[in-house]
């Protein structure tokens, strides 16, 4: 059904971004504007977007229709027509529901976090733009529009990671995120072009691609599927393009929450789900995606066990959870993967906001041991952080359990026991490192606890709302064997190429196994860290604490190599060969000119003689030519 409302989901935050940017310019050039106006615009517009989405969702649920909106023809070259149109099907509406909702809460949180910052207005302008880009990505009707959002998200993440650009490290982190994403974007772009050639349809909307996909040769489809997934690797921080994600922690914490929960990193999973018709046709690529996801999950979890920066631990846990999502979508269980995206958005946003609250309370201290040494009284943050930690560890009935368990069960059912084993081991590690974080920050004995209670309403309100979400979101997809209703699975059923159907006893055993694994992780963490002497921090040496030296490896292979190549091109190719050639030609002209210039000796008689010779030549020529 055509609806004019759909585009307003995008336009609302976009307008917010423009207004905030305009007001911010006024603020710095002319007259101070109070932070209140920025916060009202900044939080109001995502709320509008959320309410519109909610309205469309309810209508869709009631009548079972799919929304479309065609604005205008954007590009029309030869056979190719690209419409500026948006699509609100089950997947897009599901995605934009929690993107706008969690995004809105993070905006509210940012008011408290950024209070008193000089660049308050700029921050909200970027923030709204970030949300708008993500919504373009989600609601796009064709891969080209999707790519606009894709790039917009990349730009905004760059702007926000390098938000405090006075510090060189932040700028480097921003650049790193941008460049790593560019590698992925390149793959994505090539994938779209390949797909266009493979399918040969004259419009690129998802529905036409899906309808014509049988025309395409399977080699081209595999190629384009792989290239598109390279894009997803970049955006969703999977091996080998994950390196930007931990460094992205340089930005203010609300950005980390937004990147990790609602926008950006989920884009890759969403994109794979959007192309479900492509990936269900080429199974090997699906398996490849699943294995990349599994190894990323394991790899990130191992690194996270030794990190000491609270935000970096959370960053690696995001990468690890994204790995789970890719296992699910790779195996064709799209609804399970997206359900994990959904629950993850709640608890990860909450964990980041909690971490941000702690960091603010302790004057920007991020090392977990130092945080523990100056422990502050943060009852609400303590509670919500615990909820988040339990949820991500996969303890029922918290949301993380249901979504993660569904993915593991899917891997088991497909007979991919290696994936399942990696998933189980990662679940163990997840429980371990998250509770390590929790025990060190909140439980391990410390000498001084500050009695000052630091809480701001804008910080605690979103946390409490999200904690409700983190506890209860799992029941939206309550497994059938508990007599529940798998609402998310039902909502996204048309995507799935695979569904979970196994005997009840197997399912019970698998659930019990994952609970045991999680509890074991918590128990190990408890043994090791509940009484940990925080005044003797762990050493920062060793291969795991140094993140397997991947950054150093990349630096050596890619950065130094391209630096050498650039130097070679600059010093040899440019200066010697190209400049040499051009300067030789130039010098020849100059010396020739100097020789000719000697004729111009200002001697009148010489000039007159020269004229005479010239005129004589002309006359002789005319005489011969005209026969006079």
């Amino acid at each position, binding site marked *: 059904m055509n609806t004019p409302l759909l585009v307003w989901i995008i336009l609302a935050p976009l307008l917010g971004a423009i207004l905030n940017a305009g007001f911010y310019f006024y603020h710095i050039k002319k007259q101070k504007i109070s932070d209140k106006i920025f916060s009202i615009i900044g939080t109001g517009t995502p709320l509008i977007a959320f309410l519109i989405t909610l309205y469309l969702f309810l209508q869709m649920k009631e009548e079972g229709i799919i929304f479309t909106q065609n604005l205008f023809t954007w590009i029309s070259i030869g056979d190719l027509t690209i419409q500026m149109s948006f699509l609100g099907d089950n997947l897009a509406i599901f995605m934009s529901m929690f993107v706008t909702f969690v995004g809105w809460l993070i905006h509210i949180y940012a008011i408290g976090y950024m209070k008193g910052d000089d660049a308050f207005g700029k921050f909200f302008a970027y923030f709204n733009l970030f949300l708008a880009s993500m919504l373009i990505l989600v609601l796009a009707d064709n891969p080209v529009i999707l790519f606009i959002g894709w790039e917009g998200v990349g730009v905004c993440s760059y702007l926000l990671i390098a938000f405090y650009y006075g510090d060189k490290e932040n700028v480097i982190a921003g650049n790193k995120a941008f460049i790593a994403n560019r590698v992925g974007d390149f793959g994505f772009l090539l994938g779209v072009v390949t797909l266009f050639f493979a399918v040969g349809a004259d419009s690129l909307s998802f529905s036409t691609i899906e309808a014509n996909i049988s025309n395409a040769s399977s080699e081209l489809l595999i190629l384009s599927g792989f290239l598109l997934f390279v894009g997803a690797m970049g955006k969703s921080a999977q091996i080998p393009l994950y390196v930007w994600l931990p460094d992205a922690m340089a930005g203010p914490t609300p950005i980390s929450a937004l990147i990790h929960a609602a926008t950006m990193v989920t884009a890759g999973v969403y994109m794979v789900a959007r192309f479900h018709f492509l990936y269900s046709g080429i199974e090997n690529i699906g398996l490849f995606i699943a294995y990349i996801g599994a190894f990323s999950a394991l790899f990130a979890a191992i690194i996270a066990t030794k990190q000491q920066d609270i935000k970096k631990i959370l960053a690696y846990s995001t990468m690890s959870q994204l790995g789970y999502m890719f296992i699910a979508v790779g195996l064709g269980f799209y609804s399970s993967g997206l359900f994990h995206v959904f629950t993850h958005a709640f608890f990860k946003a909450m964990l980041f906001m909690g971490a941000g609250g702690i960091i603010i309370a302790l004057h920007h201290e991020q090392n977990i041991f130092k945080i523990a040494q100056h422990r502050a009284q943060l009852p609400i943050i303590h509670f919500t952080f615990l909820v988040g930690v339990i949820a991500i560890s996969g303890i029922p009935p918290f949301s993380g359990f249901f979504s993660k368990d569904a993915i593991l069960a899917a891997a088991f059912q497909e007979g991919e026991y290696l994936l399942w084993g990696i998933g189980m081991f990662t679940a163990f590690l997840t429980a371990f490192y998250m509770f390590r974080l929790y025990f060190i920050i909140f439980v391990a004995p410390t000498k001084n606890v500050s009695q000052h209670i630091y809480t701001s309403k804008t910080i605690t309100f979103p946390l409490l709302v999200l904690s409700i979400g983190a506890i209860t979101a799992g029941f939206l997809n309550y497994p059938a064997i508990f007599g529940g209703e798998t609402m998310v699975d039902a909502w996204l059923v048309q995507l799935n190429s695979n569904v979970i159907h196994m005997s009840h006893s197997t399912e019970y055993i698998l659930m019990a196994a994952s609970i045991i694994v999680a509890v074991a992780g918590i128990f190990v963490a408890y043994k090791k860290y509940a009484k940990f002497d925080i005044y003797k921090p762990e050493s920062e040496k060793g291969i795991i604490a140094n993140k397997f030296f991947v950054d150093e490896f990349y630096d050596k292979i890619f950065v130094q190599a391209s630096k050498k190549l650039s130097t070679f091109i600059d010093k040899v190719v440019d200066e010697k060969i190209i400049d040499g050639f051009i300067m030789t030609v130039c010098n020849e002209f100059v010396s020739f000119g100097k020789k000719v210039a*000697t004729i*111009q000796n*200002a*001697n009148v*008689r010489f000039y007159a003689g020269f004229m005479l010779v010239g005129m004589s030549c002309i006359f002789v020529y005319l005489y011969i030519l005209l026969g006079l």
Partner: protein
Amino acid sequence: MISLSSYAFVSMMLFSIGVIGVIARKNIFVIYMSIELMLNGITLFLVTFARYHFNLDAQVMTVLIIAIAAAEAAIFLSVIILLFRSKKSLDTDVFTTLTQGEKS
């Protein structure tokens, strides 16, 4: 009756002498006189052909040229005086301020 070609020959001789004078001589006065000689050679040509064709146009032009040559003489002579004042010489080879090549 003197033939047309004789007139033409005389005027061409005059013109040629003028050209040689401009090129060969160094003295600015002589160059100026040679230029006048070239001018007169051409006017003679014009008058000759005007007579030959019984047409007054060229005669009119000749009178005009003579008048202009008189005016030109006034300017030229004053320029020569100024040139002489600046360099104390009337040798054209001295006046090479605008040269581009090697100064000789």
